[in-house]
């Protein structure tokens, strides 16, 4: 038991909500799968299933292209309040 799982095993949130399709304009759905710095969270941490992870990846990339969510948030490129964007 030296190496314990750091994150609790979770179940796919999208499956729970029975999401059929993830629209890139619907930021509330994307929020689960984004880190604080707006990176796409890996499946092993979020517990998303493969099908939904693929959908969410496409949606996040589209949202980035249309300036709905930022590409990067770092010290040089600070967003005043990142959560203002997602509501």
């Amino acid at each position, binding site marked *: 038991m030296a190496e314990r799982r750091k994150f609790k095993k979770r179940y796919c949130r999208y499956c729970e909500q029975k999401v059929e399709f993830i*629209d*890139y*304009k619907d930021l509330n759905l994307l929020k689960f799968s984004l880190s604080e710095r707006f990176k796409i969270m890996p499946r092993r941490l979020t517990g998303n299933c493969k099908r939904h992870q693929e959908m969410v990846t496409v949606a996040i990339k589209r949202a*980035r292209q249309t*300036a709905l969510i930022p590409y990067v948030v770092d010290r040089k490129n600070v967003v005043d309040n990142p959560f203002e964007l997602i509501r």
Partner: protein
Amino acid sequence: MNHYETLFVVKPTLTDEETKAQIEKNIAIITDNGGEIVAIDDMGMRKLAYPVEKNERGYYTVVYHKAPATLIAELERQMRYNEDVLKFMTVKYAKKKEIAQYDKMVAAVVKKNDAPAAQPKQEEAPAPEATEPAAEPAKEEA
């Protein structure tokens, strides 16, 4: 005829009439080239996640339309020339499931457009909500 959804962002420096003119201009490109407008979602002025051509905000419009494939090339070519359009993206909905979702989104937009018709239009404009059946159009930007 394919199902498409085109999102474009107009510069924030324009006046209201100019913004409207720009939107109508882009819609005219679709209708003139044999496209068919299904629904128009006015997302209004939003803060951009990152500056685009030194603009911090932009006016978002989403047009749902059915169009032949050749139209998209023409539409994107014209938008690229147009300096008042900051960003645009066209998404195609081809699979059966996607088209079902497309119809759902269109229905949501139509509903959203119909609902606040009784209220003054200005209140609807700054709503930063994404298109979803659950989203309330009454939510205001702080």
